[in-house]
């Protein structure tokens, strides 16, 4: 097997490296900077040049080598390359070729383009290890335009009524994606420190983000009436959020497609905006790889694998410690 499934994570014996490992290893290839994929403690890291700065920020002093999309690199007996996954800026699928046999690890991916991340590219392979966070037919995403219209309508109505709009979005990826959808003419955009740190890094890399104001202790909310406040979901019910009153609360996630989850979150509005592929996206992406063997990781893996088998693939579900766009873990991405 080109890749094997070990307690540490996905392992390539020919190149003696792991991909997004969960426990400390010697050499780790990292698909993107989210905490369940880029963990601390590995001796050497390899990631795309675009993903690098955020990983350095999050993981501190690490031995990080970078690679461009499409660039081939020889590691032991394996040839590896990274290809755009469309999930967040710098996110990649990892292609591994050993003796003519090709495997691709999808990492997290999204097939529909957005304003910031390099658009997803299908990669031909024999075996495809795919995430399936939203691998059920109930998950269908609205278009980018519709999502933007809905969020801006909510924001404008709140601003007109003298309310703040408090929007929960993960600090890396989702927050910036949401910002790219906003109509900055409505009112100022304020950000939580965790979001603004990531903004700074991405701006320094040349990403074009709208103007934001970092919420510091001396910022007076009443100087920014009707503002959109973007914060990690965990901050929404916290002391920190209480300075913005009155406010309507919202949460941006693929999970908001389900009413039950939205109600459990106790937010006023749920916006269906995901950095993952929806049902159709997953199916199209898998077909485009031309792979015969599919391994489903994080998500509704059993159900999704059964579906793929009924569609004629060799498919099986893998046990992983990836969480994807976690449904209930407060801090996760």
């Amino acid at each position, binding site marked *: 097997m080109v890749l094997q499934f070990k307690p540490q994570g996905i392992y390539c014996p020919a190149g003696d490296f792991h991909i997004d490992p969960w426990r400390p290893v010697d050499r780790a290839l990292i698909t993107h900077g989210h905490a369940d994929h880029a963990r601390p403690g590995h001796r050497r890291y390899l990631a795309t040049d675009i993903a690098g700065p955020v990983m350095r920020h999050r993981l501190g002093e690490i031995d990080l080598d970078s690679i461009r999309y499409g660039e081939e690199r020889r590691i032991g007996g394996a040839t590896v390359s990274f290809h755009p996954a469309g999930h967040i800026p710098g996110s990649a699928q990892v292609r591994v070729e050993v003796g003519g046999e090709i495997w691709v690890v999808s990492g997290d991916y999204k097939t529909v383009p957005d304003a910031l991340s390099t658009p997803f590219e299908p990669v031909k392979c024999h075996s495809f290890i795919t995430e399936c966070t939203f691998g*059920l*037919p*109930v*998950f*269908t995403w609205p278009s980018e335009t519709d999502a933007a219209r809905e969020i801006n309508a909510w924001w404008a109505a709140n601003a007109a009524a003298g309310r703040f709009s408090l929007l929960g979005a993960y600090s890396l990826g989702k927050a910036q994606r949401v910002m790219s959808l906003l109509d900055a003419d409505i009112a100022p955009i304020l950000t939580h420190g965790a979001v603004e740190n990531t903004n700074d890094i991405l701006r320094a890399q040349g990403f074009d983000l709208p103007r934001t104001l970092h919420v510091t202790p001396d910022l007076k909310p009443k100087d920014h009436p009707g503002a959109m406040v973007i914060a990690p979901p965990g901050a929404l019910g916290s002391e920190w959020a209480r300075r913005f009153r009155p406010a*309507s609360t919202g949460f941006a996630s693929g999970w908001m*497609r*389900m*009413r*039950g*989850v939205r*109600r*459990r979150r*106790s*937010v*006023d*509005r749920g916006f269906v905006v995901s950095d993952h592929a929806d049902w159709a996206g997953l199916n199209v992406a898998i077909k485009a790889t031309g792979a015969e063997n599919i391994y489903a990781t994080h998500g*509704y893996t059993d*159900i999704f694998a*059964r*579906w793929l088998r*009924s569609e004629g693939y060799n498919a099986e579900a893998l046990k992983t410690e990836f969480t994807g766009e976690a*449904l*209930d*873990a407060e801090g996760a991405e």
Partner: protein
Amino acid sequence: MKRFTALYAAIDQTTKTSAKVAALAAYFEAAPEADRLWTIALFSGRRPRRAITTTKLRVWAAERAGIPLWLFEESYPIVGDLAETIALVLPPPGRSHERSLTGWIAYLRALDGAEEEARRAAVLDAWDQMDAAERLVFNKLLTGGFRVGISRKLMTRALGLATGQDEAALAHRLMGDWTPDSTTYRQLIEAPDAEAAQSRPYPFCLAYGIEEGPATLGAPENWRAEWKWDGIRAQVIARGGAHFVWSRGEELMTDRFPEFAHAADFLPGGTVLDGEIVAWDGAAPLPFNDLQKRIGRKSVPKTLLKSAPVILLAYDLLEENGEDLRALPFAERRARMDALMGALPKDAPIRPSPLIGFDEWEALAEIRSTARDMRAEGVMLKSAASPYHAGRKKGDWWKWKLDPLTIDAVMIYAQQGSGRRANLFTDFTFAVWNGNYLVPFAKAYSGLTDAEFRQITAWVRRNTQERFGPVRQVKPEHVFEIAFEGIAPSPRHKSGVALRFPRMKRWRHDKPLQEAASLDDLHEMLRQFG
């Protein structure tokens, strides 16, 4: 329908009560009267007859979505709501429509008795005209159940705002067994209507629990105490030569309890009693288990009438000689009720629930501790000066229940919840030891915090040993303290017992698996409290 869907969305999209009431009031002002009537009906649990089985709906939805039925069935428990699952899997609509809520309800009713192929075509055609939000509402009409975080109380408040009518009077008007077919908006809300008024119960006065005991309630002489019976709360009405028995859930139960058939003979016309229906052994209530056999039966076999006859333990008089007494102080209503009870024949199936005499709160605490011997759940405390409130109001009526029975048990199966708890493991089966085996004895799904449910959900996902449909067998590892109100023998259960109101009181992180209770412990509880 668009207006109703917008209302549904507005209610669904806010967690603020004031915003919900405002949205509903605005709707009641603007919507056509027929739609208003249906909205009142739907939000008070009166749904149109189900025209199509949910099995058919699933099959048609899966076909239309181009997915196998098993995949639909797997998705349903994850979404936690059938109407919503269907709305989510269907492809985008091909066109739109202008039909009203009442129009769509009529459309569905016209399918009653139609051939299956015609019904299928009609439903698919309807789906094809609606966006996802409308489909959800439409599917809710098809499947029944309109729980949207609007309590009856809030609906009544909104209706009061929209019509300028008194809320309590409106609450009274909305009681009873009317349907949108039997009345009109004007009749229900505005016009005087003697016939409907004859059977109509009063909104029940409800009590809050008093966890800390009554010490803070002030002087004991201002309070009256009664046993808190474990039966069915009911109003028995005698008016105009007829009688009616209503449950608290506003279900007309007259036929279910033929014992009251002669109520109109011995109760003076224009009498409404509030009390508890209990199964009665001639001197004391029988365990709830016996009453349970009577619940849910539309007609009662003779043997059951003999083995579990019911009576009403009356504790309040709401109407006397046609006069509404609810504004009078409790002590006076009670005195009038006692006078009325004194005049009843000895074999009448109605008796006064006795008042418990006490001078000091300590003395009452002592009496309360004997509640189980009385087959009671605790005591009720009512302010002597209290009017009969409509609904739940803090301050005048309190229930002071006994501490529940508890047992430490092992979680062995888990299932996902529905609605707001969809996708979260919240429904658990618990077991006790029988030698080296774990015997299931209770299911519970409440008592943990959201954070604990999230924690256990993550654990269940990692520790599933086997799946049986939606049920997962998990590794026996976690011990929970299960609280319950009563225990009864049950040949239908493996453990031989059935519990009343089991729930999780505490997650016993401190308790090793082996120290959970045994089947013997459970049977000892049955012997002592059953």
